[in-house]
């Protein structure tokens, strides 16, 4: 369903020169599977998911979503996905109903098919109370619900959740996680990024631990626990990130030392 190969993304940055957000990641996610991207802030999770949702273009590498390449057929890829992110807010001056209807129409659904489907979804997610409420008047939980419904209205085979529970209270977060599980059970391929260990442990069938644009480890939770001899996912995550950071710092100081040595050699 999703095949990512050697995906890289770099930006130019005034402070640090060339900034590499993704340094060649590869992974596969299958239908009926929740694939977790786990990593601290700045690990490259959002960049990877933005590339999968065709919001960004990769610098090199390839990514296929349901058989379509994100660079060559971005329009077809967008029809295959539903994208929910902390950054994908809802419109303040639109009601829940208008918002979902708008995106349904953008996905090419005729109103005669869209309206009954929306009725069913609004019933299922108990959103009838907020159907005429403007986005600006909704609570964070309501907004997230609308956002998820907006992403799944066209029944996409792939759903991407980028830190979708970030900033939500426990009740709403649980509801979101429950929805994600239901979608998995319907056979959807789900990419779920988070830095909350308990969520990942509970939901994800496979996990990739990321730091500084690279995948440090990849597999099922059990495989990772066995491979690194650590049952506690949080501890495992902490150790991997710590080792990765230490390696990074050591490389950086080595490079700085080499640079300073070569400079003093030139001066001599």
């Amino acid at each position: 369903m999703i095949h990512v190969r050697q995906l890289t993304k770099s930006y130019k940055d005034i402070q640090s020169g060339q900034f590499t957000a993704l340094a060649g990641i590869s992974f596969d996610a299958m239908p009926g599977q929740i694939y977790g991207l786990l990593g601290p802030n700045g690990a490259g999770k959002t960049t990877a998911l933005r590339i999968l949702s065709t919001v960004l273009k990769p610098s090199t590498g390839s990514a296929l979503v349901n058989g379509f390449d994100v660079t060559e057929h971005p329009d077809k890829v967008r029809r295959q996905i539903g994208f929910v992110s902390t950054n994908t807010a809802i419109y303040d001056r639109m009601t829940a109903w208008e918002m979902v209807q708008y995106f349904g129409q953008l996905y090419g659904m005729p109103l005669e098919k869209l309206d009954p489907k929306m009725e069913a979804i609004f019933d299922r997610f108990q959103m009838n109370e907020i159907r005429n409420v403007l986005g600006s008047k909704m609570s964070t939980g309501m907004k997230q619900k609308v956002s998820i419904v907006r992403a799944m209205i066209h029944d996409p085979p792939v759903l991407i959740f980028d830190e979708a529970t970030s900033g939500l209270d426990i009740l709403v977060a649980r509801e979101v996680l429950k929805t994600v599980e239901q979608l998995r059970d319907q056979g959807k391929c789900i990419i779920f990024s988070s830095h909350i260990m308990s969520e990942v442990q509970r939901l994800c069938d496979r996990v990739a631990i990321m730091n500084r644009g690279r995948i440090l480890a990849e597999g099922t939770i059990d495989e990772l626990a066995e491979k690194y001899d650590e049952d506690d996912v949080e501890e495992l995550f902490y150790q991997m990130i710590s080792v990765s950071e230490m390696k990074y710092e050591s490389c950086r100081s080595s490079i700085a030392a080499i640079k300073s040595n070569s400079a003093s050699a030139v001066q001599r």
Partner: protein
Amino acid sequence: MKWPNVKLIFRRELRDQLRDRRTLFTVAIMPMVLYPLMGMAMLQVAQFMREYPSKVWVVGQENLPNSPALIVDGRINPEFGHAESQLTELLVSKENDSQFQAIIRQCRENSGMTRTPILVDQLIQKEMQDRKIDLAVFIPSPIRLPNTSDPGSPETSAALIPEIYVFQNSAIDKSRIGADRINRVLAKWTGTVIRETLTEHEVPLELLQGVQITNADVADKVGKRAAAWSKILPFIVMIWSLTGAFYPAIDLCAGEKERGTFETLLSSPAARSEIAIGKLLTVMTFSMATSILNLLSMGFTGMFVMTRLGTGMGLTGGLPVGVPPLSSIGWLLLALIPISALFSAVALAAAAFARSSKEGQYYLVPLMMISMPLMMIPMLPAAQLDFGTSLIPVSGLMLLLRGLIEGNYTECMKYATPVCAVNLICCWLSVRWVVHQFNSETVLFRASERFGVGAWFRHVMRERDALPTLGSAVLCGLVILVAKFFVGFVVSPPRSFNHFAFQTVTILVATILVPAIMMALILTRKPRQSLRIRGCSLPMACAAILAAIFLNPAFTWFTGLVMLVYPPGGDIVQLEQAVSRILTSAPGLWAVLMVFAVAPAIIEEIAFRGFILSGFQSIRGKWQPILLTSLLFGLAHGVIQQTMITFVVGMMLGLIAIQTKSILPCILFHLTHNSLAVLLSKADASVVEHSPILARLLYSNDGQNFQYGIVPGILMSVVGVMLIVWFIRLDANPIPQPLKRTWFTEVASRLSGAKNNS
């Protein structure tokens, strides 16, 4: 492009904006409330707008004749201005008069009072301050009417024409207004004096008048109204169209980014171009709505206020402006479509670059500043629609609109095509810019970086690119433009040819060569490549020289066309004449060629086709970098006519530079082009007649100014075009290897070696 998606986005954005209180306030509420409120305020203020009396200090009243009496009972004689008499308060105090008179007399004897001495100025200013007077009138000596019965009497002498001085302080409005009143009174009084004197001496009064002049206005009422409105309405429409595009553009781009809804839309199936066009249509709708609502509100309010003010001033039917003719409204609505499209597209493209609404405002204010002069040009009384002005975006359209409102259809139809073409091209370019902005990741996801000079400099030094970046090319261009602007004020008028030559070359080196070379050395890792200093094959060099020769007639004709459409102003002509005079003192033709051909060819090519074009080449494609470099090249020449000519030459030079990857052919083209221009200007009959080639190629109507003949010129241009095609096709053909060692590569490698050693 899927139009149903565009329609869907447009409808959503429209609804969204209609639910936004700020937008509604700016677009609808403000115009509907603002003008009536302003009208009310005007009516209220009008009642306080009464004229205040002027206090006039009269010194030497006793010197005035009894008949005709200027002052009666301590006031101005109402016979010479009833209103002036009412509004003038005379102070006929003897205090300080003697001192004042003594000073004036002394000054008169010394300098003849051609200009008021400082002593008098100070005295008057002090009196004005101390005695709270607005102006002073001084009659220095008794005024006796001329006695023609005694021709030998001194009174008839011109030297003894009676004098009256009016001292005012022009820095104070009240003093200036008072002086105007007194001058009007004195003019009438002088007229009476002359008439009475002539009557007394039985001279016919008709002699005074000479010729009877009668002014008659043949304009009809509608025409007058149209003329009055034609100057105001286009400006109102344009300014509100721009203002109306501002806030929706900011909200639809920067506002969406700020609220986080932009990414939601980008991940939907709508293509970026569909999103851009949908938003553009929304901004355009609001721009047009703002303009129309303002126009209507202003029209209605104006009509009522004018009527009230007119009635207040005793004019039946109000002030003579009236309602604008109906046809003018139709023309305005028609013109509003392209204008709104243009302003909306530019505003949207600029707003797309902003990360927040606040930042959006920073970008759009300069847009307003740039647009204002284009809107002000047609308001000038001398501005009229001709081929030149029809090619100026916005201004041309405003002038066309003015003509249509005034009913000059024949004149307008002549220029309607160029006006529409120019504005439609601008619209198309702006829309393309919007779509490009929406397709650009760096624009849409620009990270919020704190800019620090130190960090930036460290970044520049640490992460120097091999070749110049877009930013460094723009910076170099701006440095050159600013340096040339300021140097223009510093240079002194040349005294001799040597002085002129030294000054010209120094300016070229200081303002163009030095910035380009310094930036290539500091900002890039490969300065030689950045400046495009490399050899080229012999065919390329020859083709460049031949292209300059064969395209010369076309460039010369284009120069003539530009001068015809935009005739140079008096200053430019004077400057050209001054330079021509100086050139006559040149030691020889070689010296003129060194200054006008060799130096600019080398220096300008290193900077423009070298550094700047290399920087612009970081943009994709071939033509965009050439276009931008040529634009800067043209602007660096300062004068608008030269800017247009050098822009076209720059396009050719840019093409040669990109296709040959070297500035050597560009230098050869530039050198040949400039040399031919100098030689053509210096061609005279004796030279042309003695050369069979020149005799067939050139002709002159006056034996002095030679031009290319039509047939040889066209034939040469055809060959020139073939050479352009040859340069364009260099991409398809393998580029011939550069010469192994040329003087150029030799010098370049030595320069590079010297730099590495240092």
